[in-house]
């Protein structure tokens, strides 16, 4: 899962405390991916070490985290790179789309299309392997490749569904004259407003 980049997206909307990031992350993903607080602070420490976030201490002595310019670059890179089928757990894609909807640095339709092209390419590769396997009469390998094909197809169909939903949502918002879609949860408020 891409907790790292997701936290950066949340911080892009304004500086936050570690605990606030945990609750925002869980709300954004519909509580499907609970985070433990330890994981959030470990991740934040690594982000700080890598220069992607900076910290300040507020009046209560609590650490407040803010995204740096390098952190924003990291977010942009994340949205521009399709999720690799072989290495990353599939959930990363769902998380990426959820956060693309609330990030000003991402065009969700582009994220979906980029992923579709990547999925199509890996499908083409597997299909070539299948044609070879068929010629060689390698049945076991063929069954394995079939499994990969149908998994990729499932992802592609899900992407179609995402795109259709987004198009509908955008159309409705345009009619109502409201801004482009964001996640259902309210955007995180800047720390200054919260403490007042």
């Amino acid at each position, binding site marked *: 899962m891409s907790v790292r980049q997701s936290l950066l997206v949340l911080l892009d909307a304004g500086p936050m405390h570690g605990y606030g990031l945990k609750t925002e992350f869980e709300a954004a993903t519909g509580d499907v991916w609970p985070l433990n607080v330890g994981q959030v602070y470990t991740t934040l420490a690594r982000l700080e070490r890598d220069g992607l976030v900076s910290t300040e201490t507020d009046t209560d002595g609590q650490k407040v985290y803010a995204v740096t310019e390098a952190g924003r670059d990291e977010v942009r890179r994340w949205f521009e790179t399709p999720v690799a089928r072989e290495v990353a757990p599939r959930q990363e894609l769902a998380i990426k789309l959820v956060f693309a909807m609330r990030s000003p640095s991402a065009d969700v339709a582009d994220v979906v*299309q980029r992923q*579709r*092209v990547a999925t*199509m390419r890996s499908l*083409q590769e597997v299909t070539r392997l299948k044609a070879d396997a068929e010629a060689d009469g390698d049945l076991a390998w063929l069954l394995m490749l079939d499994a990969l094909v*149908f998994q990729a*197809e499932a992802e592609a*169909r899900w992407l*179609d569904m995402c795109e259709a939903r987004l198009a509908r949502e955008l159309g409705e918002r345009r009619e109502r004259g409201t801004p482009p879609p964001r996640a259902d949860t309210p955007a995180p408020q800047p720390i200054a407003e919260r403490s007042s």
Partner: protein
Amino acid sequence: MPILEMDRAGRVFGSREARVVALDDVSLRVEHGEFLAIMGPSGSGKSTLLHLAGGLDRPTSGRVLLNGRDLASLSAAELTLALRRQVGFVFQGLNLLPTLTAAENVALPLELDGVRPRAAMSSATGLLESVGLRSVANRFPGRLSGGERQRVAIARAVVGGRAVLLADEPTGALDSISGEAVMNLLRQRCAAGCAVVLVTHDMRHAAWADRVVFLRDGRVADEAAPPGGPECLLQPGRVS
């Protein structure tokens, strides 16, 4: 020279308030032996593109060239002849002749081209075998299942030395393994030098192609080609 080329082709239906831009400034080149798949949501212009490519409809702007000849420059008779000799259509709802057996249906286009009946039947039977229909070659269409009829129609479209095959969702009613047999057949035709343009919703089938073009709102939105393909196909780019 590409066998099929669309040069800034557009197709507009209706006028004024009822004006619908089905295809907008699309440029495509399909080489001999190339397998191209067209994907996109409903209403993105896939079928319109195929109709223009096959001379079944005319572009309202731009040109469609078959083997270097602008289809618009041909007389009706020349167009009919060019299409029958060079283009095979695999569209849904293309009916078989009910009074001919499956094999005779497939052999018919060859006989029209002057191939002797015995040789034509032999080619037809071979093709039916490659789509898993050897056992029903002598049945009449009325005694075939929907999927079998569809495969016979496909075999009829690809028989003979067509230079281009245009297929619109040819695997619609087929189960997975029959659908794959059809894709295999199209692939084999490519290996023999035929160009294939396949319109499909199904990514699994599009993956058989060398190149996949994504349409959106009548325009080419993106392309995908597998790594390791010809270098010129490797650059997914926006065509506008």
